[in-house]
């Protein structure tokens, strides 16, 4: 399953918490795409997800010239890979 969440206009620490909420509902093998426009949120989401065993890939939006918009693709790993956020 592929979910998408838009955290545009949200200010830290809300984006990381919103992403965490959605991830907890997903199953191993699912993917979450996060769109946002708040530069520090990108780093915070990436850090908290990677710490909890998720794989994070930056999307093309992150490389665009305006520098603020970002897209992150977060893959939910098999349970053996790392602990889920709720654990």
């Amino acid at each position, binding site marked *: 399953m592929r979910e998408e969440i838009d955290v545009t206009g949200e*200010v*830290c*620490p*809300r984006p*990381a*918490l919103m992403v*965490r909420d959605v991830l907890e509902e997903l199953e191993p093998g699912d993917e979450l795409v996060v769109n946002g426009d*708040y530069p*520090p949120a990108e*780093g*915070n*989401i*990436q*850090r*908290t*997800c990677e*710490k909890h065993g998720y794989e994070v890939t930056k999307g093309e939006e992150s490389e665009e010239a305006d520098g603020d918009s970002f897209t992150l693709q977060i893959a939910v790993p098999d349970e053996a890979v790392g602990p889920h956020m709720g654990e």
Partner: protein
Amino acid sequence: MVGEDLGFSLQESGPKLTEYAELHGCSCKIGQSDLEGLLAQAGLDTDQPELLFGVGEDAAARQLTEDLAVVSTIDYFTPIIDDPRAYGEVAACNAASDAFAKGATENLSFLVVLGLPSELTDEAAPILNGIAETAERVDGVITGGHSVLNPWPIAGAAVNATAPPDELVTTEGATPGDRLYLTKPLGTQPAMGALRVREGEFGDQVSEATHRDITEIGADALEWMRTPNRAAARAFREAPVTAATDITGFGLLGQSQHLAGNARVGIELDHVPVIEGTLPLSDLFGYGLREGESAETSGGLLVAVDADGAGDLEAALEARDVFHREVGRVTEPPQVGLNEPTFEEI
């Protein structure tokens, strides 16, 4: 109400200042590498013979007479907390901190910088009261200022302070073998972040993440943020301090890299004091406190001292009731980083 016991208002009824800006406190600084690039682009990265030191340091110093130098700096930021008076106190404390980090602790004058959106002009007086209170605590005087309407609230000050030239400290003098001290615990960013989301949809998650009450953590953080670094800086004179800087939006690691780069040394950090309860909040928010990357607002001083004089520095800080912890040491370049640090909750 609880907020009054904590020393600040939780602003249940008044405007929430922090909602008027998208970045808070020192986290609104532009990135370190962006700043360096900008200075190079503008030709401001060269030596300035008129100054004892300038661009690249926390503050600039100009020698006026044989035994007197004036140190000048400016710092302002968006609200870190909703309470306007507390915001003013922290903003002024943070502005003066750059002068203290250079060892200039006397004759402080503050030129206030204040910008508010039109719907928040009623908050101007309590913000100014907070700035004035901090100025008074450091025997300073408010000499004027500039106020504008601005979409994001901003508050702070341009600060001048004096010192004998030979008592000034830069970031350049650290040498391998020096010991490193920090004069406030870290964790203001997760503490303030938690206050902003303690109610509403994420309230339960945030309060379950840590064993401490969120408002108590916030009150602790605020107390540290409004503690001037003046007493710590005065202790410098009684010890062979070789370099110093204050911990700000770049975090402990960023500020260590800055100091190490200027002094052409390495830094190993192995002990990190943090405000009790902030580590799990940082993990929840992805703030990077464990990595030394969490932004600090009005943080403590990071001080390098010759190993032989470390005891003198500790004694001078203790005599002034200044919190301090040894956090690491200066090494040969180029490595700068945390090395399996122990975290001490304060």
